């Protein structure tokens, strides 16, 4: 058997799931290492870094997104079970819910629709295209649920994934200085707001600040995912 010439080897690898799967996981691990070195600064977000690097690699090699996704779909598939997995932290925090049931329900009942309506309202006022407006609606929800919601209400799922990550990073950067400026010392309330507004990335930030805040943030992330999934089709279903 003769050795395969480098060009033919690339032609083979560039269309195989193996290459794109390995590159995606490898880049993510490297990005996590960089984030750790930065002391987990919220701006140094491993998800964001990996997306930027992968987009650059696809550009430089002239690879289409469809070819990439053929490989990466094995990871994409895990969005579903990872979303279902949120039931576990939700079950673990059931005592928190009992102790603070009314503030939690009130904050959720007002915060969940507010997160959607404030973002979509501003976008409509500034004349954004309908696909942009609908992609913004689930921006405060963890990506697994948000992508599903975007599909259902007619928003662009890939754009939603990026807006979700951007919202997470923004919330994680803003939450501590904002709450300090407002002189709010109640870490249950602070954490709940962080998780409701900026899902998993806000929750990770809350855990770094205070463990009570982290627990309430995780709870808010799961509850807001549920609430938004039920509310979004009711509010935005008219457009599709």
């Amino acid at each position: 058997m003769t050795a395969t010439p480098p060009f033919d080897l690339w032609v083979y690898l560039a269309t195989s799931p193996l290459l794109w799967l390995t590159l995606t996981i490898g880049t993510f691990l490297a990005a996590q290492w960089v984030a750790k070195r930065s002391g987990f600064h919220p701006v140094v977000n491993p998800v964001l870094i990996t997306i930027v690097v992968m987009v650059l690699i696809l550009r430089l090699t002239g690879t289409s997104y469809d070819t990439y996704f053929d490989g990466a779909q094995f990871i994409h598939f895990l969005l579903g079970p990872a979303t279902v997995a949120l039931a576990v932290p939700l079950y673990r925090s059931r005592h928190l819910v009992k102790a603070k049931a009314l503030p939690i329900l009130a904050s959720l009942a007002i915060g969940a629709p507010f997160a959607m309506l404030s973002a979509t309202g501003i976008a409509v006022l500034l004349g954004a295209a309908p696909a942009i407006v609908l992609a913004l609606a689930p921006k405060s929800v963890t990506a697994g649920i948000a992508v599903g919601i975007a599909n259902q209400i007619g928003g662009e799922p890939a754009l939603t994934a990026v807006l979700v990550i951007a919202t997470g990073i923004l919330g994680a950067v803003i939450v501590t200085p904002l709450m300090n400026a407002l002189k709010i010392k109640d870490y249950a309330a602070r954490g709940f707001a962080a998780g409701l507004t900026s899902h998993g990335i806000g929750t990770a930030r809350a855990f770094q600040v205070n463990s009570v805040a982290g627990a309430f943030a995780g709870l808010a992330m799961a509850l807001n995912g549920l609430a938004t999934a039920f509310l979004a089709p009711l509010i935005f279903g008219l457009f599709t």
Partner: protein
Amino acid sequence: MLFGLFILLACQLAGEIIARGLGLPIPGPVIGIVLLFALLALQGWRKGAASAETGPVAKSADGLLANLGLVFIPAGVGISQHYQLIFDNGLALVAALVVSTVLTLMVAVGVFRLVSRLLPGEEPQP
């Protein structure tokens, strides 16, 4: 691990069947969350909460959630197909994200604090 993964997938599958079968406008995995929570509550009630909180399902869930960021990446890379949409709407996008994020944080924390304070005799808050 395999059993835990099976339960997660089975809950998602049941969620998809319920959502599509009944024509509900809710993502299947969201119904899956509700189903899995019910299963955990049932297990906790029969065998004690510790068994539900640390069993095989909880272990598989923790493993997936610890790497949650990874599963967003394939969808996020799809942004490469939408440069034009973003450039054309850049200002609206940035304004909507920043203003909505700040306001949502304030509204959520404000309502939480307000209702906490309204509750009688429930304020040993640090």
